[in-house]
């Protein structure tokens, strides 16, 4: 029935195109996959429809196809059988618990940092604002390696404690370690979201409370925090989803204590030969994660937005008074423990010739760094990653710009779906994306090639560009485009000449973020990697797994440093542009 009606509308569309004297009509009344889009294109007759159709086709291929394959495979009865496995139930429970716990911790930490660093007069907050973001700039699996180095049974912390006569035997392994590390790596995101929400709160709402007789803490409690609630919720949901998808931390920190999460379970299914054909089972788990992510994303879209129109008045300054120094000391300890010392531990591992050798000046060597940086394996990894990440950045920039333009400028009933299609993958565990592409790769004939990884990267990261472009675009008055329209431009022309030009810098920034994220990617690459397409993340993981911690740390340290410098520079440039 449905097919029939689609065919009919498709014919009608073709006829009208013909009458219009436009592009040549397809000769036969074949069913058109997206007949609705075609009909709209004709109605608009302005090129915008063509852009929309183009974007939809690309998204249908990049996002729809892998997820469809996953869903079809995952609902097979043999696939569903996996849910009878108690190991799956336990992993699901662990996933939910670790993600919820860490998201809660991250949100609390993020809120505290946002208030203190954005509003208070704590000394050195400029430096601190940047330093607290460090865990965000380091890939989680590299962070996990750093903490393993730091909290090893014979690592610097336990050794020092032992020297002081405390046999604490601190260990990072296990469920608590996973929760802690997930929180460490996601709190910067929570901080950024909450700080942005905090800046959006009009300063005069707080001033009105001051003049009504409320002191600063009272204002915080009765006005600021209630107004911040949507921001806090958004931060919680974002970190929850991100932590649900993480692979590196549970793999390195959870598995040794047999703390399995869904992501590591999927990996285990795929990487160990115990199951003859792991794809159905993995698809079923992927489908479960997909459903979870969709629910979360839809729920978040229902949340009241925190986008009040802010006044020029800056937010209330939180005078810390006598607490200034203690708070500063606390923050520096925080930064030291959470952000700096793990990096030093990583450096320590990278600079020692072998584990267990005492740390002295004479023992330090650059041998690991030079050896790995020049080894063919690492060189191939770096080359492949640069190529793939560059390609992904390029595709994401163009596609993301197109999506963002359609979302912010066209009022169209397909916009809701477009929004979900473009941003949903960000909420999906990398493993789900990877499995989707694993399923469609043989059919597309791109199995075991770099194309699979590229496709998965674009799918996973296009949302980064969409988000980066969307906010600045939304603030561009539509009258600029209307002015172009009255000057004689078609809607598409006006969109491309005015709005797209204005959005280009933001899209570029988004593209650079994609580049820097994809170049360090592990979760997707490790499942899609094939001979000749080994990526940098996989190289590091391989070194680590084959016991070359020194080499792995050396490469990881380089990646972390490049990431920190690259992302900081991008952020600084983007900020400067905003300030202008």
């Amino acid at each position, binding site marked *: 029935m449905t097919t029939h009606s689609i065919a009919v509308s498709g014919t009608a569309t073709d006829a009208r195109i013909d009458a219009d004297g436009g592009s040549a009509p397809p000769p036969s009344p074949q069913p058109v996959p997206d007949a609705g889009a075609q009909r709209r294109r004709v109605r608009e007759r302005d090129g915008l429809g063509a852009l929309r159709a183009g974007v939809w086709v690309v998204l249908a291929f990049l996002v729809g196809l892998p997820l469809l394959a996953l869903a079809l495979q995952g609902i097979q009865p043999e696939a569903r059988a996996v849910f009878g496995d108690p190991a799956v139930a336990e992993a699901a429970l662990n996933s939910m618990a670790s993600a919820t716990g860490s998201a809660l911790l991250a949100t609390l930490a993020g809120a505290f940092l946002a208030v203190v660093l954005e509003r208070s007069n704590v000394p050195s907050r400029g430096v601190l604002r940047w330093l607290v973001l460090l865990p965000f700039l380091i890939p989680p699996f590299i962070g996990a390696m750093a903490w393993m180095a730091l909290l090893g049974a014979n690592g610097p912390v336990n050794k020092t404690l032992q020297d002081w006569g405390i046999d604490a035997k601190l260990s990072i392994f296990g469920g608590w370690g996973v929760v802690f590390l997930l929180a460490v790596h996601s709190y910067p995101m929570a901080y950024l979201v909450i700080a942005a929400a905090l800046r959006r709160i*009009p300063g*005069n*709402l707080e*001033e*009105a*409370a*001051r*003049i*009504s*007789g*409320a*002191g600063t803490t*009272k204002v915080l409690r*009765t*006005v600021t925090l*209630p*107004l911040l*609630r949507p921001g806090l919720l958004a931060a919680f949901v974002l970190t929850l989803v991100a932590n649900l998808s993480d692979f590196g931390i549970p793999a390195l920190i959870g598995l040794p204590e047999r703390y399995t999460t869904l992501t590591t379970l999927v990996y285990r299914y795929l990487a160990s030969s115990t199951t003859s054909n792991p794809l159905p089972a993995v698809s079923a788990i992927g489908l479960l994660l997909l459903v979870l992510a969709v629910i979360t994303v839809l729920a978040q879209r229902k949340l009241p937005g925190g986008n*009040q129109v802010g*006044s020029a008045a800056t937010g209330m300054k939180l005078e810390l008074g006598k607490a200034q120094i203690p708070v500063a000391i606390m923050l520096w300890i925080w930064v030291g423990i959470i952000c700096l010392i793990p990096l030093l531990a990583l450096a320590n591992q990278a600079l020692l010739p072998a584990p267990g050798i005492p740390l002295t000046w004479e023992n330090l060597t650059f041998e690991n760094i030079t050896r790995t940086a020049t080894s063919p394996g690492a060189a191939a990894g770096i080359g492949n990653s640069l190529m793939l990440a560059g390609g992904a950045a390029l595709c994401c920039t163009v596609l993301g710009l197109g999506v963002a333009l359609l979302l912010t400028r066209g009022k169209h009933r397909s916009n809701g779906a477009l929004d979900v299609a473009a941003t949903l993958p960000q909420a999906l565990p990398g493993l789900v994306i990877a499995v989707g592409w694993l399923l469609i790769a043989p059919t597309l004939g791109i199995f075991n090639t770099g194309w699979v990884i590229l496709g998965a990267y674009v799918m996973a990261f296009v949302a980064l560009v969409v988000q980066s472009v969307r906010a600045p675009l939304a603030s561009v008055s539509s009258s600029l485009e209307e002015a172009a329209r009255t000057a004689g431009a078609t809607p598409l022309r006006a969109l491309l000449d005015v709005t797209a030009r204005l959005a280009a810098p933001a899209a570029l920034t988004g593209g650079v973020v994609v580049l820097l994220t994809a170049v360090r990617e592990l979760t997707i690459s490790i499942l899609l990697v094939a001979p000749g397409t080994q990526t940098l993340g996989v190289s590091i993981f391989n070194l680590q797994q084959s016991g070359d911690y020194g080499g792995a740390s050396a490469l990881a340290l380089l990646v972390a440093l490049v990431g920190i410098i690259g992302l900081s520079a991008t952020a600084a440039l983007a900020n400067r542009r905003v300030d202008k």
Partner: protein
Amino acid sequence: MATIKMTDLGHVYDNGHVGLEGIDLEVRDGEFLALLGPSGSGKTTLLRTIAGFLRPSAGELAIGGRTVAAADVWIPPEKRGLGMVFQDHAIWPHLSVAGNVGYPLKLAGVPRTQISGRVEAVLAQVGLTEYANRKPSALSGGQRQRVALARAIVASPQALLLDEALSALDEPLRARLRLELRALTREEGLTAVHVTHDRAEALGLADRVVVLNNGKIQQVGTPKELLEHPVNSFVATFVSDATLFPGTLVDGNFHADHPGFRLPRTQDGYLNHGAEIIGTKPQTGSRSRRAVAAVDPASVRLKAAGSMDQGEPRPGSPLARVTSALYGRHGYETSLDWAGTQMRVLVNGWVPQEGDMVLPMIERAHVFSQETGVEGKQAA
């Protein structure tokens, strides 16, 4: 209610920009004072300094006889007992109307039972009784501003601060609220400081108007004083849209550089009839000095070029061309190009057409000797 006394108040922003300088001002008990000036003049800075959101870098500030800001004194805004209405109302979206209005009372420790009574009374005063339990998002712009006003006066503040309180509203509503505001402050005997860039609003509402420019007070006076006796060319142009004619003051007589500028002569030939010379009067015989004449639009009569055969002969006087004429409440607001000088004139009784050639007849002018400071007393 209380007085607000500012002594040599100054404020320098972190970036070195001087926000306020040498402000000496006393707001009298129960007085409605308007702070008027172009944007960047320091009027909002001054209001925020009074509120306590900015700490002055010099001088003293006392409210109701209590010093709230000085070199070694600092009372934060919440302890100053003030009420304030913000430009975009700043109504808390997470509280109901009654919650917003009752908030200052709650903080003041007023018992819950009394709060509801007082809130009800104030809401009645602003005409929002039935909206007490609504959320602010359900209110119109005017209603929100009334809530803000109610919130500002509910705790009987020492003074009411209004920061462009009416600027965000549409014109008819704004006029109505203006009246309501005036009535309310009279009724309550409130000391009010009102920041506005709207001249008509300042002149219409205030007992006294303070004109600010570049962080300094230009003139303090009643609306009538500002219009009739501006103390400098800035006040004359900003308050009355006066056109400025630079010239020279010789022996108490003003000679404009402009070839057409003439002041009416008296029978005895005294050149500057109708000119109010402001600033120290040059002693007779002393050297000439530069000065500026300000001519407000209502002090000019236009003669059509055709009717020039009789009356005063004006040899060498250039004609002015009408560049635009807009109909307004008080007549045609006419712009002229008079030998390169753009001039504004208010025309009554006939309809100037664009392109008409006319002869401006200046009836009155304020002449400001440029050596005079702001404090200069007017002389005539």
